[in-house]
């Protein structure tokens, strides 16, 4: 079975022989939601059947729980997330003055844990970290993605764009080869969507669980037979920055469902 996908991927590599150009025009921007079957769309649309809501619920519980040596909960400082976190995730990744680098929302949650709660960081892709990230991002659901315009982010975003357009791995594909140049076409049985991170953390049927944008990026890198960046690597955050800029104006869907 793997061999089949390998062949399919090689075929796509051959089709995508031309280097990608400028990305996707604003008028053509479409969420991955639009590329799904009506059944999968319905799964996302009903909060009572969307399995991602289980993580949002867990996040809501964790938000109230005192943590760390400081024995303080997220709500201890930030109060009611439904008010204080509204719109916050739509602006992330943001510039982090302490490190002089961009930080994504999961990174911010962990730095908040370290500094304010004096607690151990939550592991990447742990249910607790995904739950808190999903809960905070869920507060922005329905709001347009409006990346921070901080000038200090520019060079990191440029780096992210460079990474997005660089051919990598044994298949010598860039992210753009599929998602900018060939969206709407098929890879095997699946439609290739545009690469918009509008619903993360999201419930992927393939994963049978909720996962982060970084997990998805690492998946794609494994897919083109490249060595994936480690969770939390600066390159992944730079890619996230570029992707949110590309998705500017699309609505936050968290928790989205994808096949």
């Amino acid at each position, binding site marked *: 079975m793997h061999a089949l996908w390998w062949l399919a991927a090689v075929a796509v590599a051959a089709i995508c022989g031309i280097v990608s150009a400028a990305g996707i025009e604003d008028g053509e921007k479409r969420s991955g939601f639009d590329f799904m079957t009506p059944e999968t769309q319905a799964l996302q649309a009903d909060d009572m*059947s969307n399995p991602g*809501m*289980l*993580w949002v*619920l*867990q996040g809501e519980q964790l938000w109230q729980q005192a943590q760390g040596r400081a024995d303080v909960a997220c709500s201890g400082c930030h109060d009611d997330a439904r008010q204080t976190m509204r719109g916050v995730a739509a602006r992330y990744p943001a510039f982090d003055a302490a490190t002089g680098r961009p930080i994504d929302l999961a990174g911010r949650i962990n730095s908040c844990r370290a500094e304010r709660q004096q607690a151990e960081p939550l592991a990447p892709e742990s249910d607790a970290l995904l739950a808190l990230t999903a809960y905070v991002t869920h507060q922005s659901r329905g709001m347009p993605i409006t990346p921070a315009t901080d000038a200090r982010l520019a060079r990191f975003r440029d780096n992210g764009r460079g990474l997005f357009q660089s051919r990598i791995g044994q298949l010598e594909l860039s992210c753009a080869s599929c998602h900018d140049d060939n969206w709407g076409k098929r890879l095997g049985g699946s439609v290739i969507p545009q690469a918009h991170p509008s619903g993360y953390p999201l419930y992927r049927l393939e994963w049978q*669980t909720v996962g982060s944008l970084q997990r998805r990026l690492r998946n794609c890198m494994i897919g083109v037979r490249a060595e994936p960046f480690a969770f939390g690597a600066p390159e992944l955050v730079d890619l996230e920055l570029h992707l949110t800029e590309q998705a500017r104006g699309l609505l936050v869907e968290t928790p989205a469902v994808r096949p």
Partner: protein
Amino acid sequence: MARALVNVPKVAQQGEVVEIKAMIAHPMETGYRIGPNGSNIPRDIIRRFACTYNGEAVFSADLFPAVSANPFIAFSLVATTSGTIDFTWTDDAGKTQTASATITVN
């Protein structure tokens, strides 16, 4: 901390048939998957789901590994009297998780 979502209408007319939805976070590990170390990932599933209405058994289900991760079940009930609807999920090890909701019947 049970991670379960149940949907029961808050208010119903007596005799009305209401739709109930119940979903719980669980991997429903089939026992047929191979882990990264090459050995089988052991089976771990929710085996039974049961629903009681004011303590009386009204619906249940036996689940097998072919039920998706984070199992979702929707069914219907006749709203008889105001009270509590309880949900219990039991896994392979016999461990149970519960959730409940109240309904007001006019």
